[in-house]
């Protein structure tokens, strides 16, 4: 049964998803659903210490467990030169600990056995003797000159990793010197974890006969993973076949290459049997790519009327034990310099320093374009601090400072060229739709009665779609993306792309793009991703890059097909090519709409009845190198009520007005916005990974790392404005991450707004009820 998929001109329509029929039947094929003959299972032995020397590892007892086939330690890997692997950030990381461990839950040994249970049993019997070393948890402590140096493998004997800056320091300082108003705010973006519902895992299947390694893995970037693997392992790239089957959510967690993957591959290479490794939730949170962990300070210089002049930002980035951040290589702090946001600053200066601590590595783009969430949160929070200082309504302050529609393309003081936007229009729609003035009135009345109500605004700008190859690469590989389209004789299409969806609905939206360009229905177009043997090369799905990059490739690839199809159409219509026009659904003779041929007829002719001398077939490949990034924006407004007795915050209303350019499928866009808002809510109110002073991870599971249920998550209201991207082939910008980028500031601003009468200027996330309750208690509002 197909719903609504048989329409021509599907662009912009809420076509029901083509991927759903398998999922609603329980027929998704996720990596742990795959069972291969003679498959073995792997379990990992992890360190209980955050920093310790390894004195000995004894595997004798573990080998006694029936069914155990192989136990790998760091020393075994060292012999294969695989004990360390490069990270995307230009650092190296240990696969299995050699000499010492640097964070709790670090991988120490891998046990391979015939069953899952035997592997786990044996892992528990691996005896590791440790000698504890001094632990560094606080990044501010880590950069002190007398702090213990954690990475003795590096030449540089300090915990400082890199310094990065953008903008003009001197010109910014000059403005600050004479500025009538300066505000300053320290803002922490806590360590969080993307925690997709499906944890990470893989099956490595090395066939000794063919010399080919087939690697099934929950990957957002299968091609990049294949190349990294080829570089690290020395296996020839054409003999590595990466298959990323259905992926149960990614959110940036499934971009890096993890130690467990390397161990499973090594085990399969040694044993010649498939080896499956599926991590537990605890392993997922405690050891794979975390996100954020930025300690930021923002200062704004402004005039007395609230016109912003300059922005200064200083940040300490806690990267854990290895810099395994998933950023484009030239951007150690990602795209953080988008921090001037939607506002017309004359000057800005931004600097970030990366440091090592005894925590798990990461720094992944959790439902955001590389560090854009940190940036958006910081500027939106600090704008509210400025509004408070000037005693201005935060809405008025924003309206006064927006980059104007006429200023696009806009050159930002940190070097970005914003493609398009109409911030005022989007914000005014939001203000009107939520009834801002009435809400302020209601708030005044409630305040007079001693009730706590807050309104929070965030009018953010994102930068997504990495990216143009002049600046963007990962380990040297340019960040273009690709599409390949094959039109079969009966007019049915198979399309393959270099990206890999994890719930974004590419099987539907990319089919819509291609169907629109070719005069077909989405039902006619099968989209496949995630198989490196069949799909063209591309760098994967994250950072809202799929539509800006592969979406562009899909449209241009289809247009390439249409060019050839036009020649065939001319032949069928028996006119010259110059007399043929495309009417959106078919080729027609100019001025004679009734004389036409459809793409289906052309496709058949491409294999049966070609113009003389033309190459048969109707296929094309397109590698799209975008000329610029795209800059989606939005205006979000949160309304909260606070319970005075408990400090609990209730989000009464939340309106998200997004502008992501032209929309391919409004239903899917809305779904993406809902999901991102719930994650933004989670970050503002629930999710946090703290450590004690010994480096013990205090939230390594879903009992302690709180993810929102339907009861926690508010009801979302959404709307949209459309400012197309002028450079993108279909004018789209990408949306999957805007809500997660834009919403945390709206929530926090609302809570701070509610508590402003008690002199509260800032609260760090997550805003647990006890934090609010303590403020209320100190202010004498509650006992």
């Amino acid at each position, binding site marked *: 049964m197909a719903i609504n998929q048989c329409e021509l001109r599907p662009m912009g329509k809420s076509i029901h998803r083509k991927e759903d029929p398998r999922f609603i039947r329980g027929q998704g094929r996720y990596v742990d659903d795959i069972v291969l003959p003679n498959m073995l299972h792997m379990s990992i032995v992890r360190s209980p210490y955050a920093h310790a020397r390894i004195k000995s590892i004894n595997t004798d007892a573990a080998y006694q467990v029936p069914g155990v086939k192989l136990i790998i330690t760091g020393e075994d890997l060292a012999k294969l030169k695989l004990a360390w692997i490069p990270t995307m950030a230009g650092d190296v990381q240990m696969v299995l600990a050699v000499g010492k461990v640097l964070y709790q839950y670090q991988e120490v040994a891998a046990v391979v056995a015939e069953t899952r249970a035997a592997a786990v049993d044996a892992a528990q019997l691996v005896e590791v003797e440790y000698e504890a070393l001094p632990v560094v948890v606080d990044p501010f402590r880590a950069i002190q000159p007398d702090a213990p140096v954690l990475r003795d493998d590096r030449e540089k004997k300090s915990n400082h990793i890199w310094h990065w800056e953008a903008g003009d320091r001197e010109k910014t300082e000059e403005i600050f010197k004479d500025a009538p108003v300066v505000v300053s705010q320290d803002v922490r973006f806590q360590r969080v974890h993307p925690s997709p519902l499906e944890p990470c895992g893989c099956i490595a299947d090395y066939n000794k006969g063919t010399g080919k390694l087939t690697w099934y893995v929950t990957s957002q970037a299968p091609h990049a993973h294949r190349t990294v693997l080829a570089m690290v392992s020395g296996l020839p790239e054409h003999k590595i076949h990466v298959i990323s089957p259905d992926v149960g959510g990614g959110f940036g967690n499934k971009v890096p290459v993890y130690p467990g993957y390397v161990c499973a591959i090594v085990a399969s290479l040694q044993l010649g049997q498939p080896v499956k490794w599926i991590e537990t939730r605890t392993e997922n949170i405690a050891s794979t790519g975390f996100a954020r962990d930025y300690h930021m300070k923002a200062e704004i210089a402004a005039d007395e009327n609230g016109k912003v002049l300059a922005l200064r930002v200083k940040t300490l980035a806690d990267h854990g034990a290895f810099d395994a951040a998933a950023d484009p290589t030239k951007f150690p702090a990602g795209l953080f310099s988008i921090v001037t946001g939607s506002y017309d600053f004359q000057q800005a200066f931004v600097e970030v320093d990366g440091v090592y601590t005894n925590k798990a590595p990461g720094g992944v783009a959790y439902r955001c374009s590389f560090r854009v969430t940190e940036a958006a949160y910081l500027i939106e929070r600090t704008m509210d601090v400025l509004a408070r200082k000037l005693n201005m309504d935060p809405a008025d302050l924003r309206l006064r400072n927006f980059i104007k529609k006429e200023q696009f393309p806009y050159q930002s003081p940190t070097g970005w060229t914003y493609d398009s936007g109409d911030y005022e229009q989007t914000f005014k729609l939001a203000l009107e739709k939520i009834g801002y003035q009435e809400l302020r009135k209601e708030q005044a009345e409630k305040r007079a009665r001693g009730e706590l109500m807050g309104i929070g605004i965030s009018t953010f700008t994102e930068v997504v779609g990495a990216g143009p190859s002049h600046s963007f690469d990962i380990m040297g590989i340019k960040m273009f993306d690709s599409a390949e389209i094959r039109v079969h004789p009966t007019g049915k299409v198979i399309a393959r792309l270099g990206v890999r969806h994890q719930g974004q609905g590419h099987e539907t939206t990319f089919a819509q793009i291609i169907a629109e360009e070719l005069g077909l229905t989405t039902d006619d177009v099968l989209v496949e991703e995630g198989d490196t043997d069949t799909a063209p090369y591309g760098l994967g799905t994250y950072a809202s890059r799929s539509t800006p990059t592969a979406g562009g490739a899909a449209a241009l690839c289809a247009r390439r097909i249409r060019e050839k199809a036009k020649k065939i159409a001319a032949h069928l219509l028996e006119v010259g090519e110059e007399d043929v026009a495309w009417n959106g659904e078919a080729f027609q003779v100019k001025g004679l709409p009734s004389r036409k041929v459809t793409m289906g007829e052309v496709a058949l002719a491409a294999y049966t009845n070609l113009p003389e001398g033309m190459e048969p077939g109707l296929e094309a490949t397109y590698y799209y190198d975008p000329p610029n990034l795209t800059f989606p924006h939005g205006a979000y407004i949160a309304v909260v009520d606070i319970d005075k007795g408990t400090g609990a915050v209730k989000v009464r209303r939340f309106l998200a007005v997004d502008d992501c350019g032209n929309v391919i499928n409004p239903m899917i866009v809305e779904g993406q916005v809902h999901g*991102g808002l719930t994650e933004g809510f989670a970050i503002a109110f629930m999710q946090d990974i703290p450590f004690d002073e010994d480096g013990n991870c205090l939230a390594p599971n879903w009992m302690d790392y709180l993810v929102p249920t339907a009861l926690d998550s508010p009801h979302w209201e959404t709307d949209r404005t459309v400012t197309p991207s002028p450079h993108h082939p279909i004018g789209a910008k990408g949306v999957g991450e805007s809500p997660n980028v834009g919403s945390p500031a709206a929530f926090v601003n609302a809570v701070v707004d509610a508590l402003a009468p008690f002199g509260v200027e800032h609260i760090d996330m997550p805003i647990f009820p006890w934090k609010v309750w303590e403020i209320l208690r100190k202010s004498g509002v509650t006992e």
Partner: protein
Amino acid sequence: MQIRVTVNGRVYESDVEPRTLLVYYLREHLRLTGAHVGCDTTTCGACTVLLNGKAVKSCTVLAVQANGQEILTVEGLERDGELHPLQKAFWEEHALQCGYCTPGMIMTACELLERNPLPTEEEVRKGISGNVCRCTGYVNIVKAIQSAGRVLAAQKMDPHNQSEVVPSGN
């Protein structure tokens, strides 16, 4: 240990290790992979199936506890080629993205609608609060369950349809 379990109307006799969890019995012995594993703390509900008509987290039930019992999984919802109203509603309301939570969510909703055929939004949110979805933000899941509830209720009014549409642990 020998167990005899009825799953989706079919009887299975199996030899399992006593510590085998029901979810792994379903997934690895019977190759019914609709129930997923998402956590190790009984938090996420991705593994939810019906045990004698009651929604249970099958990661927290031993396979041997299912001996002699009836299990319904997402694979058993479709009847005579016709999707269950919940399956249809999840599709139509765009109540899934990556799909990993979907089977568990649908099975929980199945039991919820048995108990409370026309739940309010609040009641649905409470009813599925043992199931985590990391993708959708829940709004469309709530809508889908309410819409399926209306379809099921309408079908129940029509006596000819009754046996077709009421899922149970058979």
